[in-house]
């Protein structure tokens, strides 16, 4: 309850901050439209030469694109800004102020900063997903939708934990901004179904940089090509990653030496 109230306060703060720069909204809308145009244009080009791609039909890959933008937008909206701010505050010592507050520091760090306008990506991703669903029509049952929702939530948790672990490295190495770039560049691979990729790359994208759980698995659930066992696997990985990143955070924050100490 307290956490929800904190979330509301931080979001309100971020919103009033964003509203001071309203032109940014238009700029971001423009960039976002370009991004979507590129993604969908690429798909149109590929599917002008083929009916299926690695066993996926055009609407299924469009759904994947929607998921790709929803998860990517959510990361850019909440996770990335918070983690970047964490790294900065470790370096300049302002993390002191977070650690002394009577709220769990991991939660507080996660609420630190929001890029409100990046929500545009999430909304556009939802729109693309809606179009894909309409094209897929009756093929999507209630079970599929349920599995999709669970897979998406699990994928989100996995991506969050992964980012938190990367950012936590700053307690030891201080300058880790570049490591964050690894996720951003490899996330691009999530645009396409991971079963297209050769084994080594699929392994990398599933277990080392968990892009597949956040993009391909939810999209697979939606098109009804996976059952509950894979969803359970996804949930298991999510639970494991959440616990692991929590432990990592606990150990890491004990390494923090502060600015004035």
């Amino acid at each position, binding site marked *: 309850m307290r956490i929800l109230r904190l979330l509301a306060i931080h979001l309100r703060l971020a919103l009033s901050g964003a509203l001071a720069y309203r032109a940014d909204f238009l*700029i971001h809308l*423009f*960039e976002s439209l*370009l*991004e979507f*145009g*590129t993604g969908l*244009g*690429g798909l149109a*080009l*590929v599917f*002008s*030469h*083929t*009916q*299926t*791609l*690695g066993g996926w039909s055009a609407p299924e890959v469009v759904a994947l694109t929607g998921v790709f933008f929803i998860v990517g937008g959510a990361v850019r909206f909440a996770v990335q800004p918070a983690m970047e701010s964490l790294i900065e505050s470790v370096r300049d010592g302002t993390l002191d102020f977070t650690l002394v507050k009577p709220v769990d520091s991991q939660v507080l760090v996660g609420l630190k900063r929001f890029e409100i306008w990046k929500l545009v990506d999430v909304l556009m991703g939802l729109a693309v997903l809606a179009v894909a669903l309409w094209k897929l029509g009756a093929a999507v049952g209630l079970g599929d939708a349920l599995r999709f929702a669970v897979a998406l939530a699990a994928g989100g948790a996995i991506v969050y934990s992964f980012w938190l672990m990367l950012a936590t490295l700053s307690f030891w190495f201080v300058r880790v901004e*570049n*490591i964050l*770039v*690894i996720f*951003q*560049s*490899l996330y*691009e*691979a999530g*645009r*396409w179904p991971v079963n*297209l*990729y*050769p084994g080594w*790359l699929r392994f990398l994208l599933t277990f080392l940089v968990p892009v597949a759980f956040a993009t391909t698995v939810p999209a697979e659930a939606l098109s009804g090509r996976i059952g509950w066992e894979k969803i359970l696997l996804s949930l298991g990985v999510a639970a494991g990653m959440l616990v692991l990143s929590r432990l990592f955070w606990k150990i890491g924050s004990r390494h923090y030496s502060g600015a004035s100490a």
Partner: protein
Amino acid sequence: MNGLLGVYLQQWKISLAETFQYRAAMAIWLIGHVLEPLLYLVVWSAVAGANGGRVGGMGRGDFAAYFIALLLVNHVTYTWIMWEMEHRIRHGALSFALLKPLHPVHADIAANLASKLITFPVILLAAGALALLFKPAFHPSSWSVLAFLPSLLLAFLLRFALEWVLALAAFWTTRIGAVNQAYFVTALFFSGQIAPLALLPSPMAFLSKILPFRWTAGFPVDLLLGRLDPHEALHGFLAQGAWILGILLVARVLWRAALRRYSAVGS
């Protein structure tokens, strides 16, 4: 002339030192460079696989050869000048460059080449690894391989000039991200990065012939792979030359206008 050479050599040393300073950043950054052509290579191979092994006259091996060659060409020609210029203008660092008795573009070219001297071997290794994994069908003719080198040099000059002019936009707007993105999207489709240009639908294929982007990437790649006849190659060289001249003219005019707009921090 000797003086200019000395400047380049000196700039080269500075850039080498700078690049070595950020080795880890560079390694991480290379991932993105290799990943993009790799993704399209995989996607188009899958398309070929799903359609009896060939699409638009190209099989899996042809796509592998195309995108591996593209990786190399792209690495030679790419620039990061638009971010650099924006940073320079915003922080007023351009003032120092302007005080030097030489046009700042020389330092930019030297820095670009110096950094690539270090990164290119790494990209070459990556290309070698991709070649082992994807078995490209590479059978060029001898004249086209010879013609490839000048076409690559011209492609570098053309792209450098084009992106240097684009970077001047930072004198007029601080929203440089949107400008860059619009440029990248256009280049992605019309230079041959997303697919070999022969696969574009006809209105876009027509546009790709009018726009400059093809001559920065698709043309040298096609030349290297022996997919062009001598007539097409000659046409390509002329187009590259004409675009470079045209853009240099625009650059001259814009640079003067830009300097008049420039007001440094603290002045």
